[in-house]
């Protein structure tokens, strides 16, 4: 963890992510125009990209967040980053899809079934994210190691406890409520 290597990794993360995003977007446009020769290229790059993403987001999370406290460490941190980013991406997709579903031409393409599926996936990612976070807290609480507990103690005092209490109504809003809505909507759908 020195300045030069930190900046080098910083460059590799963003260069890789930007290159992947630009290339996949360009090939996707060609695919929409009927060029099927890019199918294999997209799959090859996506196969490499998902491994590259998993590794880089883990290292980026350690570099940018976990290293702020050089004494504390968590072997779950990379998964926490990935789960959280997946959840944010899904939530962002739902909001944008909702916006586009009210405007042509996506109005004819985006149906309620798409939003049902996005909602179910979002619920699954919420539970996964909660699982990762609770796993970390439970292990730290149970082990009571002097290297680990200060991380949580510093977030439960000096005013931070109020922000930590904020998610308390979240189990209701993010797990129970979506599940109830999904069950109601599933009941309204004709059997497939």
């Amino acid at each position: 963890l020195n300045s030069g290597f930190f900046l080098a990794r910083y460059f590799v993360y963003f260069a890789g992510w930007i290159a992947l995003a630009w290339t996949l977007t360009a090939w996707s446009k060609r695919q929409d125009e009927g060029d099927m020769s890019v199918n294999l290229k997209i799959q090859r790059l996506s196969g490499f990209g998902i491994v590259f993403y998993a590794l880089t987001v883990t290292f980026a999370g350690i570099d940018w967040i976990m290293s702020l406290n050089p004494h504390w460490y968590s072997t779950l941190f990379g998964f926490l980053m990935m789960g959280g980013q997946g959840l944010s991406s899904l939530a962002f997709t739902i909001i944008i899809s909702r916006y586009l579903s009210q405007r042509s031409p996506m109005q004819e393409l985006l149906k309620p079934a798409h939003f049902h599926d996005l909602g179910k996936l979002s619920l699954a990612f919420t539970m996964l994210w909660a699982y990762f976070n609770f796993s970390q807290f439970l292990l730290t609480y149970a082990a009571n190691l002097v290297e680990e507990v200060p991380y949580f103690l510093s977030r439960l005092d000096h005013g931070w406890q109020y922000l930590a209490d904020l998610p308390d109504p979240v189990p209701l809003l993010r797990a129970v409520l979506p599940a109830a809505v999904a069950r109601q909507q599933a009941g309204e759908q004709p059997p497939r």
Partner: protein
Amino acid sequence: MIAAWIIFMRYVDIYMLVTPEFASDGANLHMAPGEHASHFFVSWLDLAAPLANRRAVDVDVRGQSPAASDAGLPRSVPARVASKLRRPLMAEHHSAGHHSSPDDEYAFTPEGAAYEHTDAAVAPVAKFLFWLFVRGRGHALWPGRRLQADDRPGREGRAA
């Protein structure tokens, strides 16, 4: 509304991960001498930075998506295709960070607490990452080969 709430809670989550490591004047608590405790604070930058990301929505989505969708709609992907488709690293910090040892911040051990030493072996981790890369790439290519065979022009003609 629930999606917007999830994004807001993710922002709070990131805020809780990062900000308690700093004092309200921006100094990293672990680099400062003496007692450290972060008291809750909010900087205007914490609110300005998310607003700076509005370009993704304003320009990329609102500005370009309808045109891109219009262009792609008549020639979208056919259903047939779509269906297939450690510690030594802390030395630098401590030399500049007013800590006499890696553990002086934790000199006081609470009653009942244990202590754990970490001696991470890098070689098995590197071997696992290499294995993960090779296996992940192999799995991603397998369906691609099959799709390539199905999409090859003139295949039906030669078979006939």
